[in-house]
């Protein structure tokens, strides 16, 4: 691999942490600590390889609702990230500007245009930053993705359209979703560069992302990367994949597990037990921190129901807020929180 050993080890650690957090999230859902979650198991390489390639000093990522691994790779505050699944705040409680990681977005394909717009801003500012839009095979059917690619092509914008083709959009398999069979094949129609990569090979993902970043930074415009991967778990904790796909299919992908694969390579390159043990330990620590953070997480103060609708709120909204907060039928707890919060 061209990627140096240190980097590979870093990617490995990030993947292990992501896998552990992902598993824990499902546990927390079962335990009632968080109401729902969209597992990414199997997609760690696609997310870590791309997210870790970004330069936090100048790039910007636009996630969907399944990019926890990217958040890990980019060093996003993870308790803040999980706050969204915790139901505390749609979009999460981390700072999207400081993190260079836009708020979690549940509208499929909704944020792809934002990445394009950010790239337009970067180009107008003569910067060398790049935006990276995450989207799924299902999202590729939305008109917004097409419009974003076309705008990016017309203006040679520094944006990476990063499709995690994980085989499924809830119950619809890719072959019923993506006419022609490949999202990356769409790129040529817009004059964009494209790569179809093994999304379960984190080094390949990392290097492809770096190539695309390089292209964009040097004025070469946008790239579509289609990372072929697989959503090993259910669409979300309320989904039942048994209704639409076979155990056999799921098991065949288990053989391609991105973490096992890199582990073998690292071992061959000399990583010892201590390294693997320390990766596991670190992961366990992160999991504990996040878990504790979520268990301790309190509901947002009631004022926040009203606080962020506008930067300059309307009088009517302030009236609604004041009337509600001063209402006798609110528990004292809330009322005092509202006053003090």
């Amino acid at each position, binding site marked *: 691999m061209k990627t140096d050993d240190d980097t590979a080890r870093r990617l490995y650690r990030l993947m292990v942490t992501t896998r552990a957090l992902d598993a824990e999230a499902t546990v927390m859902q079962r335990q009632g600590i968080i*109401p729902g979650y969209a597992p990414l198991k199997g997609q760690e390489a696609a997310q870590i390889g791309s997210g870790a390639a970004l330069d936090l000093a100048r790039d910007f990522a636009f996630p969907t609702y399944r990019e926890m691994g990217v958040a890990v790779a980019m060093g996003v505050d993870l308790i803040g990230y999980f706050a969204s699944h915790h139901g505390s705040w749609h979009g999460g409680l981390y700072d999207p500007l400081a993190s260079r990681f836009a708020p979690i977005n549940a509208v499929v394909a909704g944020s792809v245009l934002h990445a394009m717009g950010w790239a337009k801003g970067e180009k107008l500012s003569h910067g060398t930053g790049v935006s990276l839009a995450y989207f799924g095979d299902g*999202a590729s059917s939305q008109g917004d993705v097409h419009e974003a690619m076309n705008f990016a092509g017309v203006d040679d914008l520094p944006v990476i359209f990063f499709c995690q083709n994980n085989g499924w959009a809830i*119950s619809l398999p890719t072959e019923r979703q993506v006419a022609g069979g490949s999202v990356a094949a769409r790129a040529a129609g817009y004059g964009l560069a494209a790569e179809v990569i093994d999304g379960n090979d984190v080094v390949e993902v990392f290097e492809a992302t770096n190539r695309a970043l390089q292209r964009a930074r040097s004025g070469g415009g946008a790239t579509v990367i289609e990372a072929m991967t697989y959503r090993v778990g259910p669409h979300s904790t309320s*989904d039942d994949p048994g209704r639409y796909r076979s155990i056999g299919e799921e098991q065949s992908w288990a053989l391609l597990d991105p973490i096992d694969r890199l582990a073998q390579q690292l071992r061959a390159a000399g990583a010892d037990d201590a390294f693997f043990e320390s990766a596991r330990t670190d992961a366990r620590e992160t999991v504990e921190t996040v878990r504790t953070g979520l268990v301790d997480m309190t509901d*947002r103060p009631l004022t926040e*129901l009203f606080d962020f*609708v506008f930067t300059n709120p309307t009088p009517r909204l302030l009236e*609604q807020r004041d009337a509600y907060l001063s209402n006798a039928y609110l528990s004292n707890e809330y009322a005092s929180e509202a006053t003090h919060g």
Partner: protein
Amino acid sequence: MAETLSMQAAINTALDEILTADDRALVFGEDVGTLGGVFRVTDGLAAKHGSDRVFDTPLAESAIIGMSIGLAIHGFRPIPEIQFDGFAYPAMNQLITQLARMTYRSRGALPMPVTLRLPSFGGIRAPEHHGESLEAIFAHVPGLKVAVPSNPSDAYSLLKQCVADPDPVIFMEPKSRYWHKAEFGQPAEAAARIEAELPIGVSRVVRPGRHVTLVAWGAMVARCIQVAELAAEDGVDVEVLDLRWLKPLDVAGISASVGHTRRAVVVHEAPLSAGLGAEISALITENCFDSLRAPVQRVAGFDVAYPAGPLEDHYIPSVDRILAAVQRTLEYRRG
């Protein structure tokens, strides 16, 4: 005789019967086939009626509605689903500039018997965009009709009426009520009864009362009945009107009710400003000005983005907020 059934099962039964009775009827959308829908409302229909009649589409709401229009031009009777309220927005152009206007544009040559099933409203602690109330937008658009059931029997019969109607109807399913079971007559009986008694656009007094009328739809109907029961303990006799149709609005039914109670409170989940409560309030004032003893009160969602779980109960009109509004109308004295 009367078994109980959930609204989810009642809608499933209606769709099954519609598909059996009319081979031009088609059910499609995201995950409605093999999976049977994320709420299992279409469970078993693809297996029974085949994948030509019940099918999954790629993930594109504008295309789902645009395809429905083309199918209707071809003579089909499309019953598309959009998976959640908040994902109807990508289809707005096709809904408003195309579906709602094709009959008009073609001078009746191309009727649009399309029923869009839209799981709607809040109350299930869902992620962003999964708890929205779009009725004010739809009701404002000429050429669209809007129906909202509050219970399984109505869900069954309203859906059949919507599909039979030659005009496009948005059928808003209150998802927080999907799993609530209620009495449900034999389908055939229910259908016959409802069709005889309640034509399109007619509301139902679900609880008669003398002192104040609560106007509601969807999940708010059950909440208003709760309010009525609590109010009854204090000797306040609340009438609850289940609108069932938001377009056409039952102006006569609303006016008749408020005409005798002389006080009204409209309740809805959508944000207050420019919500459908405004239309109903305006209509009541226009039609019952002389009898009104207090200004019509509105209890609605606040003018905020639909919030995450823990704040949801503060957003949706609560029993307390509705009771307080009832109280305000009763205590109102011209000053």
